[in-house]
């Protein structure tokens, strides 16, 4: 890995996002280091996805700074941010419904493919080469995420868990340095969750740092190296799973009054 583990890729300083009167993100500070798995947790409405959308360029933050690989990406288009190396998946699974699984994943390579419109028109050698490369890449990542089915099928034909894997494969196609997963475990059964944990570990092994928004405490505690807890748009805790597990603030934010331990599992 080129960067030393402690090299910070993403740095968010006093991020504020307001929808009219509602303050969704209230002075968030967080950072992501190379090759690290960071989980962002917090009760519903804590501003996790809003912060996520700000970082990936879909919302315009009102103030604060977001720096990625040393550059500010506050005012950048989502597509530019992805080109810089930050890919993401969506909370409610946004695959391209009228495209085959292979094509879905191939779109991930759009920005780095060397193919102009006249290449496609005239079927030049450049067209053939770039298509073959892109197809091989796509098949590699589909295989990587453990998808075995017929790739010419339409995504809507797949079960929910499989669609999740295809979405992750599509995100990986953009050769990210940081992969942001928005509630990847939502709706998965127990065995699929184990498969997901194993997949996330393999992604990390490639040197890709992962930012995870997740509600499933089991998964979060098991896999994350660092956990950031958000509540009402502010981060109230940032530390290793063990520190977070016993932090009174976190327990109180999540469970309100003092409850017994196993609820937290």
């Amino acid at each position, binding site marked *: 890995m080129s960067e030393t583990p402690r090299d910070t890729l993403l740095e968010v300083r006093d991020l504020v996002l307001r*929808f*009219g009167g509602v303050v969704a993100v209230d002075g968030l500070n967080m950072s992501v280091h190379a090759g690290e798995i960071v989980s962002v947790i917090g009760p519903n409405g804590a501003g996790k996805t809003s912060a996520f*959308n700000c970082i990936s360029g*879909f*919302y315009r933050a009102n103030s604060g700074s977001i720096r990625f690989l040393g550059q500010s990406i506050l005012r950048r288009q989502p597509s530019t941010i992805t080109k810089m190396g930050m890919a993401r998946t969506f909370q409610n699974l946004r695959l391209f419904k009228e495209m085959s699984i292979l094509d879905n994943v191939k779109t991930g390579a759009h920005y780095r493919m060397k193919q102009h419109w006249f290449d496609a028109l005239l079927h030049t050698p450049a067209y053939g080469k770039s298509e073959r490369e892109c197809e091989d890449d796509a098949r590699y990542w589909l295989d990587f995420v453990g998808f075995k089915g017929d790739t010419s099928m339409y995504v809507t034909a797949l079960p929910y868990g499989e669609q999740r894997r295809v979405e992750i494969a599509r995100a990986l196609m953009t050769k990210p340095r940081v992969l942001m997963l928005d509630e990847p475990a939502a709706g998965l059964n127990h065995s699929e969750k184990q498969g997901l944990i194993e997949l996330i570990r393999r992604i990390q092994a490639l040197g890709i740092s992962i930012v995870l928004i997740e509600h499933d405490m089991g998964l979060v505690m098991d896999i994350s190296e660092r956990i950031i807890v958000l509540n009402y748009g502010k981060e109230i805790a940032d530390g290793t799973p063990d520190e977070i597990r016993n932090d009174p603030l976190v327990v109180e934010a999540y469970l309100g009054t003092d409850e017994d331990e196993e609820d937290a599992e």
Partner: protein
Amino acid sequence: MTQVLIDGLFLGCVYALIALGYSMVYGIIKLLNFAHGDIFMFGAMIAFTMLTAVPGLQSAGIVAVFGVLILSMFLTGGTGVLIEAVAYKPLRSAPRLSLLITAVGMSFVLEYGVKQFWGSKSITWPQWAQMGAGSIPIFDGTITISRLVLMAVSIALMVGLGFYINGTRQGRAMRAIALDQRASTLMGVDVNRTISLVFFIGSALAGAAGVMFGMYYGAIGFMMGFLLGLKAFTAAVIGGIGNMYGAMLGGLTLGLIERTTVYFCNGDDSWKDVVSFGLLILFLTLRPTGILGDRVVERM
């Protein structure tokens, strides 16, 4: 010069009445009802048939004309509800594109369906049903009584609609659905009935505009809905699509702007349409929510 203002205001009233229909339907189910201009024309056709088919109506004079106005408003409203039920309701969850294309299809069905029954030639409104020609001088312009009466009727309709939307229970339901359809269902609002009601009111207003148009101009045809519908939509966008008062304001503004452009090109109105559509494109790009429309933040 005041003559230009009077003409502009009158034309503006016609545009506003139709624009209300566009704004209401767009506000509630985010559909640009292409067929709305043709519903305006359909209203005029229904009223014409009633005026000519029912014998002895002539003797009742003005009372009969207003009776026909109310009746054709109801019938056009009914047609609007029928169109919504047949063509738009099944597609409520379909992608935007198919809903828009169905609206284009419906506008063809109305236009060429009317042509089938009422013929392609321009139809003359019965003489006795046209408003009297007496006129009252204002400053250096003159306004015929008929225009005055028709403007009064349209303003009354618009103000009535305003109270209805803001005052009554169904009005509140409409505004709720406009904001969030699913939430309103949870609150016990019968969405389908309310949407039909919106189509009824929007179409009835367009029908009224159609009848008044026939009464004043005295000639109607199967294609008159297309251009006027487009102009009314421009008015709705300028005023602020989805906003009632926006539609009224937009209608009057567009009417005045058109008349002044024609005045400055001294009577040559070949470039008038270019100005109105240029305005439409300008507003849609620079301020899509129009004069009164509030800037809505598009959430993911």
